[in-house]
C-alpha cells in the first residue's frame, strides 16, 4: 500500500452492504445427491473436453468423463458414481440461455470413489510432476476465472515467480464460500499453498483476506503458524479487493503494467479454493468434482454454504435450502459480477462460487436517468477510468472514442453501475462496446485476409498472362525461326539446283 493509501484509506472501489451473514456462520452442509447430474464439458477457459464414456456406461466418482482438447483445456471427471444416461445439450449458465454439451449421470447413490493414490511427500517431486498431477485432476481457477491452474503453474515457472499471492479476499457481497473454506479447511488450504509454492518456485506466499472475516483470518493464521514464509495479511474490506490487480497492488505495492501479466512482475495469484483443490489433487489424488458454494438471497429460507457435486441443477440446489416462493431473479456468482440465469434448470460448474435467489425487493432494477456528470463513477473506478465519458461515447456509437478513453482497461467490476445515482447500466454499455469492437476487429482481420488472397489472385493471373505471352512469343519466335530456316533451306536447295542446272 502506498503512503497516501495508508493515511487516507483506499481511494478506489465501493463498499456495498455485504449480506454475508448469517449465511457465512451456518456450518457447511453436503448437498444430498439429486436425481440427475448434468456435467458440462466446458467448465473452464479454453477448449471443451472430449467425452470418452458411452451412454449406459457405469462410472465411479472421480472417473475421467472427458479428456482435455488443446493446450489450454481441462479434463472433466464424474462427480459421483452412477450410470451415464445421456450425452447431449443443456442450457448454459449464461443470460443468453444458449445450449452447451453435457454428460448426464444418474447417480446410484453409493457415491463410490475410484481407487485413488495420493503423493505422500509432494516436495520430493519435480515441480513439473506436480503440474502434471494438477492438470490431470482438472483443477481450474476457482475464484471465477476458471483458467486451468496447471497452465498458470508453467507460466509461473517460466517467469521466475518469487511471490505467490493467495486470494482470500472474497469481496463480492452475499458470498462466503471462501470464508467457510478457510474456517473449516485452513490446514488443507495452507498445504495447497505450500504445494503451489513448490510447483512455481515461489519463495513466499501472501494470503490476502478481507478484514470482515476475522474467524477465517484466525483459522488461517493458526494453520500457517509453522511456516515462516506464508504470511496471512488482512486487507481492507473494499470491493473489488478480490480482483487480481487490486490485490497485488494492496499486498505488494506493485502495479501490473497494462499489457503485462502479473507473472512478469514475479507475482502469481491463486484463489484459496484453488489451493484446497490442489491439495486434494496431489495429496489424495482426487480430481475436482465438487466444490463449496454459497446459496443466499432473499428468496432463500435457509441460506448457507453447501458442498455441491458439479453438474447439479440450480433448482435442485435451491430446493434443499427451503426456498421462499419463486425467486424473482437468479444469479450465478456474486451480485457485482455474477451471471443472470434464464431459469433454474442450468447446471453449476467449477467456477460457480454461489447461487443467489433474489426476492422482488432485491431484484429491483431502477430505471436509468440522464447522466448528471456527478463523477461518482470516476471516484469509484479501481482502474482510474472515466466511465461517464466512455458511456457517452458508446451511446453515440463512437467506439473508437470510447477505446481511446481506456475501454480495454475496464475490468467490468461493476463499481460504476453500482454507484451511479442515475442508475445507468454502464457495465452493460462497456460489455456491448467491447463485443462490438472485437467483432469489428474480427471482421477487419477477415477482410485483410480476403484482401491478401485477392491480391495474390490478381498477381497470379497477371503472372500467368505474362507467362503465356512470353511462351507465345517464344513459340512464335521458334516458329518464325523454323520458317526462316526452312525458307533458307529451300532457297539454298533452289540455288543449288539452279547451280546444277547451269
Amino acid at each position, binding site marked *: 500500500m502506498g503512503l497516501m493509501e495508508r493515511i487516507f484509506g483506499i481511494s478506489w472501489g*465501493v463498499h*456495498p452492504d455485504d449480506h454475508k451473514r448469517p449465511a457465512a456462520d451456518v456450518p457447511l452442509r453436503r448437498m444430498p445427491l439429486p436425481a440427475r447430474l448434468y456435467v458440462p464439458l466446458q467448465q473452464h477457459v479454453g477448449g471443451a473436453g472430449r467425452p470418452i464414456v458411452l451412454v449406459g456406461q457405469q462410472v465411479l466418482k472421480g472417473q475421467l468423463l472427458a479428456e482435455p482438447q488443446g493446450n489450454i483445456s481441462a479434463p472433466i471427471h464424474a462427480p459421483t458414481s452412477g450410470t451415464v444416461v445421456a450425452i447431449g445439450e443443456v442450457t448454459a449458465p449464461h*443470460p443468453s440461455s444458449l445450449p452447451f454439451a453435457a454428460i448426464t449421470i444418474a447417480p446410484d447413490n453409493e457415491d463410490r470413489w475410484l481407487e485413488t493414490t495420493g503423493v505422500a511427500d509432494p516436495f520430493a517431486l519435480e515441480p513439473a510432476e506436480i503440474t502434471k498431477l494438477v492438470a490431470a485432476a482438472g483443477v481450474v481457477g476457482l475464484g471465477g476465472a476458471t483458467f486451468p491452474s496447471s497452465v498458470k503453474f508453467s507460466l509461473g515457472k517460466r517467469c521466475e515467480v518469487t511471490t505467490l499471492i493467495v486470494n482470500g479476499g472474497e469481496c463480492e*457481497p452475499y458470498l462466503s464460500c471462501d470464508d467457510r473454506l478457510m474456517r473449516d479447511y485452513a490446514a488443507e488450504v495452507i498445504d495447497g499453498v505450500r504445494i503451489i509454492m513448490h510447483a512455481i518456485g515461489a519463495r513466499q506466499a501472501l494470503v490476502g483476506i478481507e478484514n470482515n472475516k476475522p474467524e477465517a483470518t484466525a483459522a488461517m493464521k493458526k494453520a500457517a503458524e509453522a511456516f515462516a514464509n506464508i504470511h496471512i495479511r488482512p486487507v481492507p474490506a473494499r470491493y473489488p479487493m478480490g480482483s487480481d*490487480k487490486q490485490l497485488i497492488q494492496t499486498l505488494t505495492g*506493485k*502495479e*501490473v*503494467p*497494462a*499489457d*503485462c501479466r502479473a507473472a*512478469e*512482475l*514475479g507475482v502469481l495469484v491463486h484463489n484459496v479454493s484453488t489451493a484446497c483443490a490442489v491439495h486434494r489433487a496431489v495429496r489424495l489424488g482426487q480430481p475436482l468434482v465438487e466444490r463449496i458454494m454459497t446459496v443466499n438471497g432473499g428468496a432463500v429460507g435457509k441460506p448457507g454454504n453447501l458442498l455441491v457435486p458439479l453438474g447439479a441443477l440450480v433448482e435442485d440446489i435451491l430446493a434443499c435450502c427451503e426456498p421462499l416462493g419463486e425467486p424473482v*431473479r437468479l*444469479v450465478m*456468482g*456474486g*451480485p*457485482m*459480477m*455474477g*451471471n*443472470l440465469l434464464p431459469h433454474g434448470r442450468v447446471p453449476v460448474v467449477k467456477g460457480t462460487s454461489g447461487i*443467489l435467489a*433474489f426476492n422482488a425487493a*432485491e*431484484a*429491483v*432494477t*431502477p430505471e436509468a*436517468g*440522464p447522466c*448528471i*456528470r*456527478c463523477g461518482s463513477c*470516476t471516484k469509484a473506478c479501481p*482502474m*482510474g*477510468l*472515466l466511465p*461517464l*465519458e466512455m458511456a457517452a461515447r458508446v*451511446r453515440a456509437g463512437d467506439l473508437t472514442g470510447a477505446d481511446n478513453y*481506456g475501454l480495454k*482497461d475496464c475490468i*467490468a467490476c461493476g463499481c460504476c*453501475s*453500482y*454507484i451511479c*445515482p*442515475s*442508475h445507468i*447500466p454502464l*457495465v*452493460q*454499455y462497456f*460489455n*456491448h462496446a467491447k463485443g462490438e469492437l472485437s467483432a469489428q476487429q474480427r471482421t477487419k482481420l477477415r477482410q485483410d485476409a480476403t484482401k491478401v488472397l485477392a491480391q495474390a489472385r490478381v498477381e497470379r493471373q497477371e503472372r500467368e498472362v505474362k507467362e503465356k505471352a512470353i511462351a507465345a512469343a517464344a513459340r512464335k519466335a521458334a516458329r518464325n525461326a523454323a520458317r526462316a530456316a526452312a525458307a533458307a533451306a529451300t532457297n539454298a536447295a533452289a540455288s543449288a539446283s539452279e547451280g546444277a542446272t547451269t
Partner: protein
Amino acid sequence: MNSSIFSAAPLSAPHAHIDASVSRVMRWVMAALAPATLYGFWLFGWPAIDLWLITVLATLFGEALCLRLAGRRALPVLGDGSAILTGWLLALSLPPWAPWWVGVFGGLFAAVFGKQVFGGLGQNPFNPAMVARVALLISFPVPMTLWVAPLPITAATAPGFVAGLHILFHGLPNVDAVASASVLGFAKTELTRGIDLFHSLLGAGAPHTAISGFRQGSLGESASLLLAGGGLLLLGLRIISWHIPVAMLVGIAGPALIMHQIDPTHYLDAATHLLAGGAILGAFFIATDYVTSPNTKGGQIVFGFGCGFLTYVIRTWGGYPEGVAFAVILMNTLTPVIDRVMMPRIYGRDRRGTPLEPDRVR
C-alpha cells in the same frame, strides 16, 4: 447502432445498486440551502418570499413547457428536483425586492435557454441559474443592482403580505428611500470618483459586510455562515468534494490578500471579498454544479481556482461590481478542456496512456 441495448432491462451485472438517486441529491442540496434562504426571507420580508416563489414557479413552467414541446411527460422529469433547484439558486442571487417580471424572465430563461435547448439535465454546458442571472444583469441593469437595506420581516416598518405583493407587482413606492449600494458596488463607485477606501468605507452611510449577514445584497447571498454550514453538510454527505469550494475561496482570498497588502487604499481586504457578494454561495452551491464542472480532483482544483481568481479580477478591475456569475460561466466554457487535459492516470499506464515498464515496476 442498435438502440435496444440502451432501453432494454440490463442483463449485465451488477445486480445490486446503491440506494441513491438524482432527486435525493437535489433534495439534500435544497435542504442545505434552506437555512440561508429562510434567513434571507426574514431579512428582506414578504417581497423576497414572493420573488423566490415566482422565480421557482417560472423555472418549473419553462421546464415543463419545453418537455411538452419535446413530446415527453413533464411530471416525472420535474420530480427530479433539478428545475426547482435552478430556480431556487437564481432567486437567491437576485436583488430581494426585484419586480415580478425579473423573476419570471430569469426563471424561464434559466430553464429554456440555460438548460432545455441543450437537451435537458446533464447536457447544458453552462450553469443555468448563472446564465439567467447574467442575461438579466446585461438586459436590465437597473432593477438588477437595486439593493435594499435589510428590513427584517418582524420590524414594524416592514411591508406586510399585501404590501409585499404591491412591491412585487408595482415596484418600490419610493426607490431612494430604501435603495442603497452593496459594499462592492459602493467601493467601486467611490473609487471611480477618486475617493479611496479609507475615506469611503469609514464615511457615514457606507455599507459594510457582517459575518451575521445583516447587510445589503442578494436575497440569499448574505448569510455567509449559514451558507458555509450548508456547504459543510454537503461535504459531510459527500455530495460535493472539497476541491472546488476550497480552490475557489483561495482563488478569491489569495489575490485579495496580496493586493490589500500592497495598497490597502485601493484594494478591499480578503475578509470583505469572502463575505461580500456571492462568494460563499458560489463556492459551495454554484461552482460545484456537477453538470458544468470538471470530473477529476485535479480538474476541480483548477476550475475552482479559476472561478475564484476571475471573480476577484472582475470585481477589482472589471466593469461590474460583482463577478461570480461571469467567472463561473467563463470557467464552464473551459470545463471540457480541463476534463480533456486532466484525465486521471489509468491503472498500469502512465499519464500519457502508455503501459508501464515491467522492469521498473519489478
